[in-house]
């Protein structure tokens, strides 16, 4: 087991480095000079040279990457071009807000999706199965930002029971989770965010459970005289590695893919920060946010792989 853990962590390092290369090269994907937004249009060649030197853009690209990586490893993502604030601070605050959405969306979607999928998989072909399969397809095909808009139309515009957007009157700094006046701002974004993972998890769980149920060992268990409840317990346990893998992916998507939902609800999380960075063409913020979110994604995948190895000894030996 230790050997597997070691190998898996070692495997994650080149991936993380590759991710950092992609994030770094975002600057050079941008059309024109990376400094275009900072410099006034009538800047003299001398000013341009000075600013270029100050930002380090006059060095060879591999050196720039090395310097940038060195700073990133020390927690310094540079400064925002638009606000001059340290990117690290902005990223931390916004990722924390996104994590708050995920904190509620994760249990909601995992529990709902898993129980729906398990029910459908245990009774394939029955009405429950059809309902769940249908609901799962809807969940997968739903544009979640549109669902967010519809929920806003229903609950904020028509019935006015829940707030449409934002994070409370006093913003994220004074957000108190256990006060309903603040917590009610969470309801609609969390439901919207949970919808796609519910569909995907229900679908995967159903497929995994139905698959395991057809294996020979289930017949053996039945032949040994186990009751239906005990059989289902074995089936669910054997289906869990597959389900866990998808749950891990969905956790990553809840953290990194919430940009659309956050934009709809103007929730001040990482997606909202990204959106602002895109509008302002603020490449350091774009870089920093994407690097932070994708590193969280890499880390999640690592944790899931390790959990899977704990659950299923066969993976460890592979």
């Amino acid at each position, binding site marked *: 087991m230790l050997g597997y853990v070691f190998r898996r962590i070692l495997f994650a390092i080149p*991936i993380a480095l590759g991710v950092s290369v992609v994030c770094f090269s975002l*600057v050079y994907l941008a*059309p024109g000079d990376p400094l275009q937004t900072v410099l006034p249009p009538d800047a003299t060649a001398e000013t341009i040279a000075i600013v270029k030197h100050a930002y380090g853009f006059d060095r060879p690209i591999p050196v720039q990457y090395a310097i940038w990586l060195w700073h990133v490893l020390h927690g310094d993502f540079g400064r925002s071009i638009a606000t001059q604030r340290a990117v690290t601070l902005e990223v931390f605050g916004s990722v924390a807000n996104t994590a708050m959405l995920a904190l509620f969306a994760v249990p909601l979607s995992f529990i709902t999706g898993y129980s729906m999928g398990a029910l459908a998989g245990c009774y394939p072909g029955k009405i429950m199965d059809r309902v769940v399969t249908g609901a799962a397809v809807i969940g997968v095909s739903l*544009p979640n930002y549109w669902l967010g808009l519809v929920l806003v139309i229903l609950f904020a515009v028509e019935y006015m029971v829940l707030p449409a957007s934002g994070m409370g009157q006093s913003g994220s700094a004074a957000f108190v989770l256990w006060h309903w006046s603040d917590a009610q701002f969470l309801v609609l974004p969390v439901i919207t965010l949970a919808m796609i993972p519910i569909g995907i998890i229900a679908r995967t769980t159903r497929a995994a459970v139905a698959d395991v149920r057809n294996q020979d060992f289930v017949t053996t268990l039945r032949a040994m005289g186990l009751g239906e409840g005990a059989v289902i317990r074995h089936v669910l346990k054997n289906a869990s590695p597959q389900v866990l893998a998808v749950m891990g992916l969905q956790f990553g998507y809840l953290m990194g*893919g919430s940009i659309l939902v956050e934009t709809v609800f103007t929730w001040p999380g990482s997606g909202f920060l990204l*959106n602002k*960075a895109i509008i302002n063409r603020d490449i350091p913020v774009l870089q920093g946010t994407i690097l932070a979110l994708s590193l969280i994604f890499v880390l999640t995948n690592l944790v899931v792989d390790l959990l899977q190895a704990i659950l299923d000894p066969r993976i460890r030996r592979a």
Partner: protein
Amino acid sequence: MNKPVALAVAEIPADSDFDGAPATKVRGYWQSVGYRLRHDWVTLGFGVIVLLIVLAAVFAPLIAPFSPYAQSIIGRLKPFGWRGHPWGTDELGRDMMSRLIYGGRISLMMGLVPVVIATMIGGTLGVIGGFAGKVANTAIMRTMDVFYAFPSILLAVAISGAMGGGIVNGIISLSLVFTPAMCRVAETATAQVKNLDYIEAARASGAGTLTIIRHHVLGNVLGPVFIYASSLVSVSILLASGLSFLGLGVQPPEPDWGLMLSTLRQSLYVDPLGCALPGIAIFITSICFNLVSDGIRAAMDVRI
């Protein structure tokens, strides 16, 4: 399925083990796929809807009652059923119905083109990686792993956010998002058949690598690749409209469902129903593509 055709049943004694099926005509693979599809009413039904959506997009100039760009200052944000405009008008007084019909053109294109590009690039890389073995495989697949390490919407937003909006940049970024997945599917399928005996036999009888790939590998790879690509179309439509919704991707005044959703959002309180319409179009299109893809997968009996 495959019921044996009994010949001269009467001549066989009733208690015989022999069921009287000497010459059963067994269906070929494609025949049985066609048979299963013909009897799958759900897939057929949604396939017809997909066809209608595609036809409406192709023949938009003939169907749409107005130009999708014609604005009207006095006829702004008219509700459902307004005279002359059955589905109302948008925030610039443009006919919603015409814009939705024309919007299908861009939205379908944004759904199909990136998938086709990704299938060609990713599929080629995957077959090369799967067939060439060690070094090339490691180089290709580890590079793909890096792109796998991003949530798809994040990668799409990152690339088109850095490159700026526009349809072309949107297509480039979505193609990049889908390439690693296509590559992985093609690589797995190739690696599965690479070491089978008949490839060995082909090589022993003097076939070159390209010939083997063309005659013996591609046939096994195209099935899974095609199925996976078809399931990506609805994802691509969703992601593309999401990009347009964020102001990346399609730019105004082009009619695109995601972009319409984003501009109509401003008038949420005035015309809630009109604001929901483009989303319904996205939803219906993507669910139809999803169900048709599921149906074809079941009929072709491919597991990915």
